């Protein structure tokens, strides 16, 4: 029995086995896959939003002491300068 004969017999047998199954259309599966990708990438955008909010909060907290410095009296500033130069 040569390769071609084996190939033909197996192809026929495979076709007979697989024709029992309905092949879903490409679009049918593709649409679901696209929806799945959209669903799984959404939380990432949400996460980026939270990171941005946290960064703004962090910046506000970091700037807060300098604002306090502006409000402090001359003595505090002079003391700070003395500490730096000593």
């Amino acid at each position, binding site marked *: *029995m040569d*390769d071609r*004969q*084996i*190939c033909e*017999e*197996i*192809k*026929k*047998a*495979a076709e*007979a*086995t*697989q024709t*029992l*199954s*309905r*092949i*879903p259309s*490409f679009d049918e*599966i*593709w649409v*679901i*896959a*696209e929806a*799945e*990708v959209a669903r*799984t*990438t959404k939380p990432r955008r949400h996460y980026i939003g939270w990171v941005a909010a946290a960064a703004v909060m962090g910046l506000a907290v970091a700037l807060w002491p300098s604002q306090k410095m502006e409000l402090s009296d001359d003595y505090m500033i002079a003391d700070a300068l003395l500490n730096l130069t000593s």
Partner: protein
Amino acid sequence: MLDNNPHISKTALEDIHGELFGWSLSRCGFDNAVAENLMQQAYVELLSGRVKFDNQSALKTFVFGVVHNLARSRFRQQSTHLRLIDTFAVEQDDSSEGDHEHESLKAVWEAVESLPQRQRDITELVFIRDMTIEAAAHVMGVSLGTGRVHYDRAKKALAKKLEQLHREEFL
């Protein structure tokens, strides 16, 4: 072209969809629902860019490999379970009478299914999906030399089984 996989076009995937579904079916014991799920997972991997096609092989080889790996990793337990159900179902079906040609084709397919897993995979990829031994070995994740050994063994085993089937038919 897909956003996350610039070397893959939707039309190219559509062209191999039928063949890919056949491959998915055989990966999960010919269960339609599982095969659809597997195809969907493969398309998700390609759409999201979790697997990247770099044009190093044919698209068909690459996508078949994606389905093969997904089936191995995510559906291993499920497919084994389904194969057991399928085997049981085939055993039950044997009691019903079918036409002679169908019975003979079923016997040929059973001969393919009785091969060890890797020999069965390479038989399917080369004989049914018209791949070269090199491409089939790539899909299976084995070297070309190993692929050739599996192919040669499968061919010899099948030739023996098919000749035996023909002899039984004539008796």
